[in-house]
């Protein structure tokens, strides 16, 4: 299932709908980077609220997305990691080191807007 990417001003929002296959995640990675270039976006929000499991592949892909987008000069924030998913990630030894996270979409937008202000 492909992840829809919405454009909201300077920000792109990708919302995970359900369990994503590796192929879907790879597609999201290339799609997001392409769109950031196309729209000259300054921020990206990846909403993983609906994600049932965050395994090593998914968390590595999210980290790669954030780092690639940073190289474009834009910021990424991952929002909506469920408490149970966070618990499993810690047990598994997965960290999203160097990647901003926020509680939900609203907090993610606040985070990005604060970032944009300090960028001026």
């Amino acid at each position, binding site marked *: 299932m492909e992840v829809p990417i919405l454009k909201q001003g300077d920000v792109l929002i990708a919302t995970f709908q359900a369990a994503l296959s*590796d192929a879907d995640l790879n597609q999201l990675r290339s799609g997001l980077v392409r769109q950031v270039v196309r729209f000259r976006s300054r921020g990206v929000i990846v909403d993983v609220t609906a994600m049932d499991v965050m395994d090593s592949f998914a968390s590595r892909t999210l980290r790669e997305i954030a780092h690639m987008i940073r190289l474009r000069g834009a910021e990424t924030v991952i929002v909506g990691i469920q408490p149970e998913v966070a618990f499993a990630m810690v047990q598994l030894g997965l960290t999203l080191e160097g990647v901003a996270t926020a509680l939900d979409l609203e907090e993610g937008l606040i985070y990005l807007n604060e970032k944009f202000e300090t960028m001026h």
Partner: protein
Amino acid sequence: MSDGEIQVAINSDQDIILARQKGRALATEIGFASSDATLIATAISELARNIVSYATKGQITLKAVNGANRQGLAIVASDQGPGISDVPQALRDGFSTSGSLGMGLPGVRRLMDEFEITSQPGRGTTVVTKKWKQ
């Protein structure tokens, strides 16, 4: 409650999702708390991923198990892949031969309560891991 085994053939990344969804459903049926069902689903995801990455194909078997005064869920992940020549090394954090994070096996061991691995180079690998209901 179903007392049969659930078998999921693992041939592609799509099967990883199927296996963990079936695992979560079985965990819920056995009566695991939702947080434990997530741990079990995550362990299945990692084990199925190891099969796809290292052995290309294999099988995940899920079953309800009974211990002394307790119920649990067992995951058996087996493949006829290249096997692991140094199992203790594969169980250390940070070790990988496929360019992945290499956290699969030690991570799975932390997610679950019991963990056994048998592997023969050239013959394949079988991981049996269990989680008991609190």
